């Protein structure tokens, strides 16, 4: 039986912190659990904390990219936080640059990134000075 990673909710952000070496099935479970939680809670942001993760191989890398795409389709934004330098070096050499995944160095910066991008979306493309909305 593969373990399930807890998904925590803080306001309208879902937080997942990967603390153990997950097998592939647990990685797939997490992907499904997160998609369901985004819809159930109406969350606008997902933060995946990989501070404790010492390797990201192509399977986990693909999961991060897939979660970002799925949540974007469900109107939520994903940020991966806490990637170790050795993990970043290895991922790039492996051939995975995670182009579509937003990252931040720390959890705090990740949450701020989500806030800022939310604020930008709510202002709309014309920003504050859009005459149509004034």
């Amino acid at each position, binding site marked *: 039986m593969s373990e399930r990673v807890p998904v925590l909710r803080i306001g309208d952000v879902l937080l997942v912190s990967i603390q153990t070496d997950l097998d592939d099935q647990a990685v797939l479970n997490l992907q499904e659990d997160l998609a369901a939680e985004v819809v159930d809670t109406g969350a606008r942001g997902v933060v995946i904390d990989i501070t404790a993760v010492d390797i*990201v191989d192509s399977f986990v890398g693909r999961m991060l990219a897939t979660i970002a795409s799925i949540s974007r389709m469900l109107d939520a934004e994903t940020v991966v936080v806490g990637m170790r330098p050795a993990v970043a070096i290895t991922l790039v050499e492996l*051939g*995975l640059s995670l182009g579509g995944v937003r990252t931040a160095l720390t959890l705090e910066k990740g949450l701020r990134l989500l806030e800022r991008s939310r604020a930008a979306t709510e202002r709309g493309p014309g920003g504050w000075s859009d005459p149509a909305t004034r």
Partner: protein
Amino acid sequence: MTGADWSESLPITANDDVVRARQAVRALAQECRLSLVDQTKLVTAASELARNTLVHGGGGTMRAALVESGVRRGVRVAFEDSGPGIPDLDLALTDGWTSGSGLGLGLSGSRRLVDEFTIDTRPGHGTTVTIVKWAR
């Protein structure tokens, strides 16, 4: 290198064996005093190859050991399966080419992460991939 030289031997027949394979290789990499980046590269390569053994080889065995060559020390890991083998090795080593649903980075990507990489494959008989990472 004969079979007796391997200090570790692990079956790879289920998802959690891939996790155990990573842990065993990490322990050897630390014992060998590989740098943190080299440990990460070796364990990542081992993870890709263990998954290949499970998914494409239908399961098999991982063997690992510390090796020495002159003053150099390193970690050697071999993944052996008796699956269908790889009919076109050049194609299988191409970035992005995949026989399954993966990203096609397992073989080509793990080759970039290690210092030595050899594949012995015979269609219908199986595949053995052996990698070495040397301490710098």
